[in-house]
């Protein structure tokens, strides 16, 4: 069978655009032709990464805003044309073919005309005409304008590098038998048994628990957590941090709000053969007196906007709206407010996110400190390149293998 390269990406992207599915989930849930999997995945991610710019392109040549299906076909075509160096006639042919296959013969003429007329240089010149600097950069880098404005405020000229930083590759942490994989191209990380591969095909070693896929940022956060007897991982799913921390903490308790995600932790720890992690379904923002002052260390890896991981999850740039940040801040504060009561005097509370923004990081810590004078921030150290914020460490994707993470350590002491 002759495959239309646009079809599988179209199916996946439709789930993302119209149902709001997470891109990873959409890929997993779609039957795609195995032999073209890498091409399909590349197109899907490429379209999502450049979504804002493609919207601008479509607006410019089709001011009447075509329907979602047509927009999706055009975006895939633009990606193939601009980023995969495919011939225009070939891209146009695929796109028109797909229109027909979907029974949309009515629009095939429009799609054909669009792709023939589209001119990159003229479009880019039009981008440069956008008067507002932030708006212009937001279109150019397909980054939400509000988020770009925050990057600019916090990181100045570095904003563009942060916004456009690419994923470092596949971060793999080995437990055993790493030597056989190291002949493949990889980069070393500052952490033991952790490497970043250009590509890595999962094999039986994964199911045997010889290695796991864990982002270098997640490993850096665990590295900041001091070894202790009893540790609580308060927002634990899928369990990567709990399992790694079980190496240096005697007992790890893992709270997770959703039952199906508690199951993920169980599967993860069993795959890795770890026995000192206890997973429980519990809302970390609701106080449970049974755990009052029960832990030497509590890690709150709070739900956040995820902007530190857009190179891995480009759909975040599409769906995360400025209005979401209020709700996120409320959840972040509630979790700290509750979990700080689980820390013994002299113990440590760790707050971490995969966000780049002060409002989710130091801002939350400062708001917490206002109500909790018994806590003192202790400065952390990390071998992974980072910026020092007023309270915590900020890992930024342009210098930390594509990882954007934040972590802060608060020690419970006496009230001043």
């Amino acid at each position, binding site marked *: 069978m002759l495959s239309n390269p646009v079809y599988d990406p179209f199916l996946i992207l439709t789930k993302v655009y119209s149902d709001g599915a997470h891109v990873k989930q959409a890929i997993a849930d779609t039957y795609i032709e195995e032999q073209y999997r890498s091409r399909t995945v590349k197109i899907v991610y490429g379209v999502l990464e450049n979504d804002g710019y493609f919207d601008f392109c479509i607006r410019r040549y089709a001011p009447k805003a075509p329907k979602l299906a047509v927009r999706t076909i055009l975006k895939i075509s633009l990606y193939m044309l601009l980023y995969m160096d495919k011939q225009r006639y070939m891209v146009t042919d695929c796109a028109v073919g797909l229109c027909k296959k979907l029974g949309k013969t009515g629009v095939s003429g429009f799609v054909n005309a669009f792709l023939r007329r589209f001119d990159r240089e003229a479009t880019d010149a039009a981008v440069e005409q956008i008067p507002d600097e932030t708006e212009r950069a937001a279109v150019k880098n397909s980054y939400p304008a509000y988020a770009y404005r925050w990057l600019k405020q916090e990181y100045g000229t570095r904003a563009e590098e942060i916004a456009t930083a690419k994923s470092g590759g596949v971060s793999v942490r080995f437990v055993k038998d790493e030597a056989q994989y190291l002949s493949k191209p990889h980069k070393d990380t500052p952490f033991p048994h952790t490497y970043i591969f250009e590509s890595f095909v999962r094999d039986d070693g994964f199911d045997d628990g010889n290695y796991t896929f864990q982002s270098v940022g997640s490993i850096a956060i665990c590295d900041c957590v001091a070894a202790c007897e009893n540790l609580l991982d308060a927002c634990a799913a899928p369990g990567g941090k709990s399992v790694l921390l079980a190496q240096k903490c005697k007992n790890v308790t893992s709270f997770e709000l959703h039952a199906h995600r508690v199951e993920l932790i169980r599967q993860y720890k069993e795959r890795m053969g770890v026995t000192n992690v206890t997973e429980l379904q519990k809302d970390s923002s609701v106080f449970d007196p049974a755990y009052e002052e029960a832990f030497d260390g509590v890690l709150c890896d709070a739900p956040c906007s995820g902007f530190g991981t857009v190179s891995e999850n480009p759909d975040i740039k599409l769906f995360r709206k400025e209005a979401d940040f209020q709700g996120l801040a409320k959840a972040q504060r509630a979790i700290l407010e509750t979990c700080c009561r689980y820390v013994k005097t002299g113990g440590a509370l760790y707050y971490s996110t995969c966000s780049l923004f002060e409002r989710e990081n130091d801002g939350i810590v*400062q708001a917490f*400190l*206002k109500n909790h*004078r018994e*806590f*003192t*921030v*202790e*400065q952390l150290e990390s071998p992974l390149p980072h910026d020092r914020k*007023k*309270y915590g460490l900020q890992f930024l994707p342009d210098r930390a293998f594509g990882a954007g993470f934040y972590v802060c350590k608060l*020690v419970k*002491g*006496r009230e*001043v």
Partner: protein
Amino acid sequence: MAIRNVVQVGDDVLRQKCFPVEAFDEKLWALLDDMKETVKKEDGAGLAAPQVGVLRRVAVVDVEDGYFEFINPVILSQKGEQSGWEGCLSVRGKSGIVSRPMKVKVAYQDRYGEKQLLQAKGFFARAICHELDHLDGVLYIDKATLIEKA
């Protein structure tokens, strides 16, 4: 022994650089005894001589690690960083978040003029840094990143 009056911010004596102690005599001991009584009564974590109107390099610290008297103290080295809340007996009704070293090594003399060395960390280190700043006319409100009503 007597409880001494704690000078409040605005008084010029808090902004002076203090003079080293040369005589380890009964006058110094009286000052130290009064400072101890005052800091205990006020429930403070420490007190420096200028806070009771005496421009000498003398401070006391009262923390969980114990009660310490520092005469002519000098910070030899410091390590790490911590940010947390501080208050001051000379700045009533306020507190603020101040960044301080996590650990300090201090050389000083005791009330008999004997040279001493001490390492402190955590809140103890914070209290030492706070009191030593007083000896150079520096208050925590000069350094705080956030100040609130107590």
